[in-house]
């Protein structure tokens, strides 16, 4: 076995795996900082700006504090489930990142470095499926805490995920119809060939998907499972220290994951914008990975912006919104898309 073989066969995959673990963590830290600063600025405040330049080290300080905190498990908790829950949540969101392509393959000599760990022909389904597993962690966490607020948070979470998986599935289908593939890389490649992003072709799909995605990630205005003014902290009320940090990181990782999906499915993944306009051809010089990051940062920003603006939905209205508006809309959209696709 040659030296280069070792590098390509072992080091690079291991490096990628490490990167996939680090990447959501890093994004979480950026995201915590972004969230605190942006929400503060929107509230006429300045937000954390003391620790490091513009407070960029604040999330590290927070994380460090969490690591040092005492890990409390109350007596009435179910010990096994209580411990499994955060791991499950974390595991599912990290695993899903394996299938998310971060950029186009980079050619180093004869070797093609792909910016994803695995390209699966059913990548989209896998990512959606894996991200849905995290709800088990939420249920386990809420149930095992054996306490009122976590239990209610967990119950709300179940209903929410059940309702919002459907519009997500339906809108994803319309994208799949156009891309003729459920391989995430293929979806992006198809947008590259079509020279138009699906977001502009299927605006309804995009809006429905985005609203459902906010609900899936338990973010405002759909943050019912952890509604602070009602359920204290929802399903992770009884968690502290590292276990709490796991839930926290997983939540942000989930947001990053969903933003990645939106970018890949509707906004061309790593593709540079304006592929049709020759004047903007210079934008292609910037590597795809950067474009991808810029795009997901926009959607993460949108998350924070929405959170800073809207009040919280109520439980029954959440369900009503899903079943009376989003699902019919998604179905209609699906039918129209199917028809168009059939005719073309």
């Amino acid at each position: 076995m040659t030296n280069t073989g070792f590098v390509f066969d072992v080091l690079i995959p291991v490096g990628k795996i490490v990167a996939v673990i680090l990447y959501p963590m890093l994004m979480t830290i950026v995201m915590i900082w972004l969230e605190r600063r942006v929400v503060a600025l929107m509230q006429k405040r300045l937000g954390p700006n003391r620790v490091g330049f513009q407070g960029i080290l604040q999330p590290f300080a927070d994380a460090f504090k969490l690591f040092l905190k005492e890990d409390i498990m109350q007596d009435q908790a179910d010990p096994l489930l209580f411990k499994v829950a955060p791991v499950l949540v974390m595991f599912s969101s990290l695993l899903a990142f394996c299938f998310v392509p971060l950029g186009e393959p980079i050619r180093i000599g004869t070797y093609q470095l792909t910016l994803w760990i695995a390209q699966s022909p059913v990548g989209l389904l896998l990512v959606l499926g894996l991200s849905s597993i995290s709800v088990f962690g939420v249920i386990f966490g809420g149930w095992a805490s054996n306490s009122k607020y976590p239990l209610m948070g967990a119950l709300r979470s179940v209903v929410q995920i059940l309702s919002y998986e459907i519009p997500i599935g339906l809108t994803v289908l319309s994208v799949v119809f156009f891309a003729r593939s459920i391989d995430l890389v293929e979806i992006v490649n198809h947008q590259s060939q079509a020279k138009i992003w699906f977001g502009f072709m299927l605006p309804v799909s995009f809006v429905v998907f985005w609203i459902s995605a906010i609900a899936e990630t338990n973010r405002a205005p759909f943050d019912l499972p952890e509604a602070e003014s009602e359920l204290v902290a929802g399903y992770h009320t009884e968690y502290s220290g590292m276990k709490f940090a796991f839930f926290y990181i997983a939540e942000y990782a989930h947001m990053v994951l969903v933003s990645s999906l939106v970018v890949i499915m509707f906004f061309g993944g790593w593709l540079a914008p304006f592929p049709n306009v020759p004047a903007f051809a210079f934008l292609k010089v910037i590597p795809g990975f950067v474009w991808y990051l810029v795009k997901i940062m926009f959607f993460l920003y949108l998350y924070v912006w929405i959170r800073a603006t809207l009040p919280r939905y109520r439980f029954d209205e959440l369900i009503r919104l899903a079943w009376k508006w989003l699902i019919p809309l998604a179905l209609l959209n699906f039918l129209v898309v199917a028809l168009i696709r059939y005719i073309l």
Partner: protein
Amino acid sequence: MGPQHPSTHGVLRLKVSVDNELVLKIEPVVGYLHRGMEKLWESLTYAQVVPMTDRLDYIAAVSNNLAFVLAVEKLMGLEIPKRAQYIRVILAEIQRLASHLAWLGFMANDIGAISVLLFGFEDREDFLDILEIYAGGRLTVHGLRIGGVPYDLDEALIALIRKSLDDLPKKIKDIETLLTKNRIWRHRTEGIGLISAAEAIEYGLTGPALRASGVAWDIRKDIPYSSYQDFDFEVPVLRGGDVYDRYLVRLEEIRQSTRIIRQALDKLPAGEIMAKVPRVLKIPAGEVFHSIEAPKGELGFYVRSNGTDKPERVKMKSPSFINLQSLPLMCRGNLFSDIVGILGSLDIVLGEIDK
């Protein structure tokens, strides 16, 4: 729920029975903040009680001062100079603005609009600054004395008040854009926490909550005190009796308060700011009840004097306490999430409930 809970506005405990999310029964448990205020006052002179009343409804200290001071003055049969009465009105209405803006923030936060909490508090800050310049305190102002007001309003302060009033409508408009027309806000408030006019009267509901149920009752208008009859203002009354109407009534009260303050500033008469009060205040024996329209509702003080410099008995009729008892009625048939919204719409302050 509670006593340690982010949205019980203090240390209120609610025993809630729920069927999944549906509220079956709700029972408020009060007393976690009891400080024995009424008993304490029996060992203090009248002048010493006034700063203590700041600690009841700590969101609206001047209103408490006003209620107690008016009760004692009524017992003494004291005539207050017109200028002092006007300054009292100005301070009380500034306090109403501050209280309503703080309420707006709390309420919005309960329903999940985190930014409005900050906006409401920022707007309130202007009025707290005025009170701070006037009397040196922001929350526990101690802004009134028996017999009048301790300080006069000078030109600089009047200009500042006018400026703050001019800035207010724009700020309120932003908050309205974020809430009044917002669909989520309307879903969360319309038709929630219903209480009819008859029930409201039966339960002794007072203040904006009563007026949102269609009962036109405002002590400022109906039993004017401290020269409120001199001012032209409207009492907003809505018929819905839900959280949304209580919110609208308070917003309209903010506008009416600015009207009252402007009129009082325009018409501010010259003259003394303190009536002649002896240094050691001995109140003639007797008993009296006087109530005012505080930001949260009817706030009354019953004072019984035995001719010494200390009250024999003081009983307080606090609006928060009385409004809280209609919470179980309002919550019937609503969902768990609505409890915080309804509780928020009642505008309770635990300092006033537990005394």
